[in-house]
């Protein structure tokens, strides 16, 4: 290392920091000592401030860069606050932080997108279990009756047959001359097939007992029947004007075609 050459009067004006031998100090990433622009000075550096106020621009930048270098070497940065806050450990930990680096920002964005996708997945999953649900009382009875706390006997009547057996039960009251297909009031546990209305032999009043079919629609069904002779499948009801897919699904459980 060469000996520094000092002038005869080592005053602050003649001695420059550049005369000293420079060792290569690894700087942190992104930290550049720029002599053209003064680095913002730390407020806890009164001597630096005082000097910067009095000196010219170049020497002020010298002083500022040297204090910045010193600050960087000492581990003190611009953002460090007063001593009191550092002593209060809890406050320092819980103060909101507003400065983010790009890698922090990337991680945060990834976590946000992950949370969003989780939310959407849960949303999509909600509608997917319809087919596995036990809509009929017959499916759910075995479990329900064993855990039922009350002592009333559980009547295992299928839900679907109970309702069509209710609607034709109105028929004897409405029109006594209909031959009801099945004995609805006497057979709550009867099998579904005996209570379904046969499309080829039903009268208008019988058809009207089905919910979703009124007098006009019943008449149209009968007219279509006379037109084509006889129904061979329940789906032929789609050809009847006034019956669409939705209505067909509504009335399908109550009707059948018997050959």
């Amino acid at each position, binding site marked *: 290392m060469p000996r520094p050459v000092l002038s005869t009067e080592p005053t602050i004006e003649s001695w420059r920091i550049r005369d000293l031998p420079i060792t290569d100090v690894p700087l942190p990433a*992104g*930290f*550049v000592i*720029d002599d053209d*622009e003064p*680095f913002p000075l730390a407020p*806890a550096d*009164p001597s630096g401030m005082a000097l910067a106020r009095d000196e010219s621009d170049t020497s002020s930048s010298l002083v500022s860069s040297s204090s910045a270098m010193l600050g960087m070497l000492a581990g003190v940065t611009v953002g460090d606050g*007063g001593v009191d806050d550092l002593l*209060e450990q*809890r*406050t320092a*930990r*819980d*103060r*909101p932080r*507003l*400065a*983010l*680096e*790009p890698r*922090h*920002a*990337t991680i*945060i*964005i990834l976590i*946000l*997108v992950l*949370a*969003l996708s*989780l*939310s*959407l997945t*849960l*949303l999509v999953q*909600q*509608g*997917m*279990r*319809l087919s596995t*649900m*036990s*809509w009929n*009382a017959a499916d*759910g*009875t075995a*479990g*329900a009756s064993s*855990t*039922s*706390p*009350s002592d*009333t006997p559980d*009547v295992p009547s299928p839900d679907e047959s109970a*309702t069509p057996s209710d609607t034709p039960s109105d028929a004897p009251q409405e029109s006594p001359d209909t031959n009801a297909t099945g004995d609805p009031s006497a057979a709550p546990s009867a099998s579904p097939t005996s209570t379904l209305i046969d499309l080829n032999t039903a009268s208008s009043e019988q058809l009207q007992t089905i*919910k979703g079919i009124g007098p006009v629609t019943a008449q149209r069904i009968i007219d279509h029947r006379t037109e084509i002779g006889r129904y061979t499948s329940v789906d032929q009801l789609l050809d009847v004007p006034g019956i669409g897919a*939705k209505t067909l*699904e*509504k009335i399908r*459980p109550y009707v059948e075609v018997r050959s």
Partner: protein
Amino acid sequence: MLPCVVVVWTTLLAEHAAFGHICNGAVGDMTLMARWPRQAFGPIWPAAAIVLLLLIMPIVVAVAYWRIRRRRLHRHHCHRRDSALLCHGVVIVTAMVCACVSGGLHDLVQSTDPIIDVVAENGGAAMVIGTVSVPMTVSALRDADCQTDIRVHGVSVDRIRSPSSITIRVYATGQSCVFRQGADYRVVGTLQRPRFGGAPAWLIVDDASDAVTEVREPAWWRRAGTIMQESFIRVTRRLPDHGQVLVPGLTLGVLGQDVVMTPWSAPAQTDDTTADVDEAYAQRLEDDFKQAGIMHLMAVSGSHFVLASTVTRRLCARFLIPRWATSVGVVVAYMMLATLVYPSDSVLRAAIMGLGGAACLLAGRRTQALSGLNWTVILALLIDPSLAHSYGFALSCTAVYGLVLCGDAVTRFLRGFLPRILADTMAVTIAAQTFALPVQIMMTPQLPALSVPANMLVAPFVAFTTIAGLLALCVSWAVPALGFAFAWIACLGTLPLERCATLIGGSRFSVLPWHEGAKGAMAVAAFELAVPLTIMMVRAMVRVIARGALPWRGPEQDRVAYGGDDDGTPYRARYMERVGAWWRETRTMLFERDVGDVQH
């Protein structure tokens, strides 16, 4: 992450309001949204906006990142502060977009729900299959006996089955009150538009005997939890009146008179000689608690989870169990506690935050309360946007934010005037109430004027009462006598609570009427902001006056005196420090044996 939280929450609220406006010009009423004709342009408008946002977001992120990289490559300016702000801005924009997307899609799905359609057409008969998500409680309607919430899986209206995904409120009477938490039920009833409350629809169960059928049993842990809860309730029914009401409230989060027990747990009626809770007394006690401002004690919050975690950690430390096993134990304790208490949004918040703390324990890092709370709120709001409108969640979060952000400052300020214990208690109350007060005003437009003294009076008794209650909850199912002993201790602790509530809640000055709604909340917030600002201004003026009283000795002294805080501020002993010094000297003088120099 605090700006992110604010942005996400306000975006969700604004999006919900905007969705209502877009769909039907009505704000905040989900049922009116369903009247929007879905054929032509119904949900396409909001769906298009959401898709557009989804396309814009990656572009914005990519552009921002490219610009950051380009800047760093140039390097002629050290703009660390600028790039930090830019990164923060990008994160905030991403959070806003995510919140918009999540909230928008949830609102969209809910507005096209078939149950909402039925309710919009003034209700109708329906059959609903769903899972019960909360235990039964006493109904708020006069003509029903019990109520519960069902998370619907499918609904059958006019024999058309459709999937559904909303949570509705179910009211049932008499024999139909057989709901167990966690079980799947098929319920036949009438859908109705709700007259109050936050549920999107009500289902009034039919009076038939087979209106409610259980389709699937709850899971084994859920059944065990329900058995433990109900044995505990049965034990508390043997306590005096105030114990019957308050001990379940402090432990489980539900007041004693609101509990409805399922028929499974009813014992043979031989030993059930105690009557039900006295309705009128219980109602009056509840009102007194609300007036006094200590109703938050009756809701399960973070303090229960902190107790559970402390007990677990001390136990594990006693047996020198390694840290990873301790964190697993803490997680198990949290899960058990969350299973046993009645579910609510504040329990959800506390559980998620507690799990974050357990993760920190696993990683060996210290917890950061603010950071944990921020992430809890962001993740909870993104995954379930309906929490943004939930008052329970808002109250819980704002109280903890107040504690974390202002707690230390208020403690330091109060320790100057009051003894340490009083200062700490009062600081906790004031800090928690500061942020929670505007939300409380929006719920009930009343200012609890005496809530600070009320909270300070009851604070010493809450901790051991909660511990006794939790112990009773843990053992009542096995040894009812021991459970009764613990419950009796808890009852002793609730006596001061009851006295304080009756004394303070019953007085005329306990509440002040205030403007209602958002305006009242903002007025309260402005008032709360003005108080610390006034204190700081008064202090600054006192400091200036004190400095001005120094004799002026020339420019040198001038610079020293007004030189800012390089030379420090002159030391002025605070009131409590002077009182403390006097007390120490007096104590030494009076009670020490050797009368010599008083040194300390």
